[in-house]
């Protein structure tokens, strides 16, 4: 089937008019180039956005209290209320398939006044009262010492895990910091560990300037009593927090005597929903890349088909001679189809190579100028490339189909008469 004579013939035909062959090839080359580059750009954008999400567990929601907007059970509207520590157990008891329910409290922040003091140094940092599980919901890497544990919680130890940003501000380079004390709002906490967060977004610096202390110690030190600022709730893998959300909020409404229809009294942020929205954006981007790429490719294929038709027309007489000498119609058809596929695949490969070179160039450029917001490491997978080759194969077949049929439609006698 793929014998030497056929290949010779294909090469003879395609090299007999090199200029035309190259022009034809260009269409397909350009189409696959655009497809590859668009897909890579989409991937780069996707990588950029994903980096913004950082390592955060995406099957997570945050929930906090606001003022009620409807009177209920004799209570007025515009009433403010707080989540309580006991709400956590209530959620565990009433909502299945949850993985983490972390109550949190917070104070300070880089925008506010200085709230942390060490000797003569001061700084404004976000201080969180947290349970140990938070490290799974808002992942960070412990770079020295340890993170909070349940002994800290139970014994209300005044210990703190500080970010590298805090470390740089409050300590000399190479200064020993584990076991030293910092003063948060006038209360001494012992530093037991430091962390680093992976985040490429604009607040990258801020996320390294946080301090984590045990929830119980926080409540005691800063007089929060049983109050909970907000909760971070993560569903088990396999169930989505978006589906459990209503259930959780209903439990809270009931416990805090909030009207069941009061939509505003409990605020929340559903990370999973948000993440899915972004995911569908990626799917959309990919679809656009495919549509545009395949459109351009299609015009390339039509080009190949047209040229093959012209080639067939030019070779009418030759085809007539071959048939007079006894070549089978299917053999002629196969020849034309193979020429078409060969031309399409070769030009497609050139497109893929050029596309890869451009992507490589962009990557080296990105490497040299440093990170660009929302655009990281554009690339295409091997799967996409082999998919593109598949598409090319089929395209070549399609492009050759009409010309191949027209090649054998002319009867040999008529073909021989055209002088």
């Amino acid at each position: 089937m793929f014998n030497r004579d056929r290949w010779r013939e294909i090469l003879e035909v395609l090299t007999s008019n090199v200029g035309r062959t190259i022009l034809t090839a260009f269409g397909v080359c350009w189409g696959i180039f655009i497809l590859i580059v668009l897909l890579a750009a989409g991937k780069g954008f996707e990588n950029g956005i994903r980096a913004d999400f950082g390592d955060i567990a995406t099957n997570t929601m945050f929930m906090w209290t606001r003022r009620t907007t409807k009177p209920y059970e004799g209570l007025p509207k515009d009433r403010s209320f707080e989540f309580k520590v006991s709400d956590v157990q209530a959620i565990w008891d009433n909502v299945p398939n949850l993985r983490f329910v972390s109550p949190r409290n917070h104070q300070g922040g880089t925008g506010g006044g200085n709230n942390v003091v060490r000797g003569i140094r001061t700084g404004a940092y976000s201080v969180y009262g947290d349970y140990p599980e938070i490290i799974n919901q808002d992942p960070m890497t412990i770079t020295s010492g340890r993170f909070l544990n349940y002994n800290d919680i139970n014994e209300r130890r005044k210990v703190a895990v500080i970010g590298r940003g805090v470390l740089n501000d409050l300590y000399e380079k190479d200064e020993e910091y584990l076991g030293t004390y910092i003063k948060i709002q006038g209360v001494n906490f012992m530093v037991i560990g430091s962390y680093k967060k992976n985040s490429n977004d604009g607040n990258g610096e801020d996320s390294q300037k946080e301090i984590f202390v045990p929830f119980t110690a926080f409540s005691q030190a800063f007089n929060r009593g049983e109050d909970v600022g907000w909760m971070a709730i993560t569903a088990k893998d396999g169930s989505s927090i978006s589906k459990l959300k209503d259930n959780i909020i209903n439990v809270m409404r009931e416990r805090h005597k909030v009207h069941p229809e009061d939509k505003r009294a409990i605020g929340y942020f559903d990370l999973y929903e948000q993440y899915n929205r972004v995911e569908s954006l990626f799917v959309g981007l990919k679809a656009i890349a495919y549509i545009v790429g395949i459109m351009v490719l299609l015009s390339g294929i039509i080009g190949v088909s047209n040229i093959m038709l012209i080639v067939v027309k030019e070779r009418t007489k030759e085809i007539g001679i071959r048939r007079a000498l006894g070549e089978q119609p299917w053999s002629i058809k196969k020849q034309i189809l193979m020429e078409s596929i060969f031309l399409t695949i070769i030009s497609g490969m050139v497109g893929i190579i050029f596309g890869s070179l451009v992507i490589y160039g962009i990557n080296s450029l990105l490497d040299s100028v440093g990170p660009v917001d929302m655009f990281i490491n554009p690339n295409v997978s091997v799967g996409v490339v082999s998919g593109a080759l598949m598409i090319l194969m089929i395209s070549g077949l399609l492009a050759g189909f009409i010309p191949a049929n027209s090649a054998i439609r002319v009867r040999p006698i008529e073909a021989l008469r055209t002088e």
Partner: protein
Amino acid sequence: MIEINDLHKSYKMGSNSLHVLKGINFKAEAGELVAIMGSSGSGKSTLLNILGMLDGANSGEYTLDGVPIKDLSETKAAQYRNKFLGFVFQSFNLINYKSALENVALPLYYQGVPRKERQEKALKYLERVGLKEWATHLPSELSGGQKQRVAIARAMAAEPKVLLADEPTGALDSTTSYEVMDLIQKINDDGNTILVVTHEEDIAHMCKRIVHLKDGVIVEDKKVKQVRAEQYV
């Protein structure tokens, strides 16, 4: 070898049709060398094309070496052409990007003969037409007479039962024509059946039998004493 009975052929030209062959009866034995004569437009090529299975008749019977030729599919026709027939055309019809050797080897390729054997055989036939040294040349590098000799070698390479030549000397000067006829005579001497369409008297007389076509019927069919072309070369 060839037998046709009451063969009719007409061409449709829009609404009216042109009746070209109006009942041809003809028989040729193996080893014959027949000239088909007639003025231009008398239907000689039409007849030869039908005999060559390049075209179909409207009615009538055609038997080639005992095989009835009727309602052939294109695939079958191609197979029969390849196996039974060799063609020589007025305009040579060589494939211009293939060398003389490749042209001659072409019918063997369609028969599925392996490459090496094909080339050996093709070279043998090129040698028979005296063009062994020209094997690697393209048709454009050959003279008219040489081209026609390559075409004859190509037609003979598949060892067909019948060689059909449509005005093989039509594009050649008389000396070259005689060379080609000499070759055809020698092939016939080896026992091959050959039909030659021509409108030139001298060429016709180099055959062994002359069939005259006029107004779509055979008006004359006579045996002649063959004039050997050799003496004019």
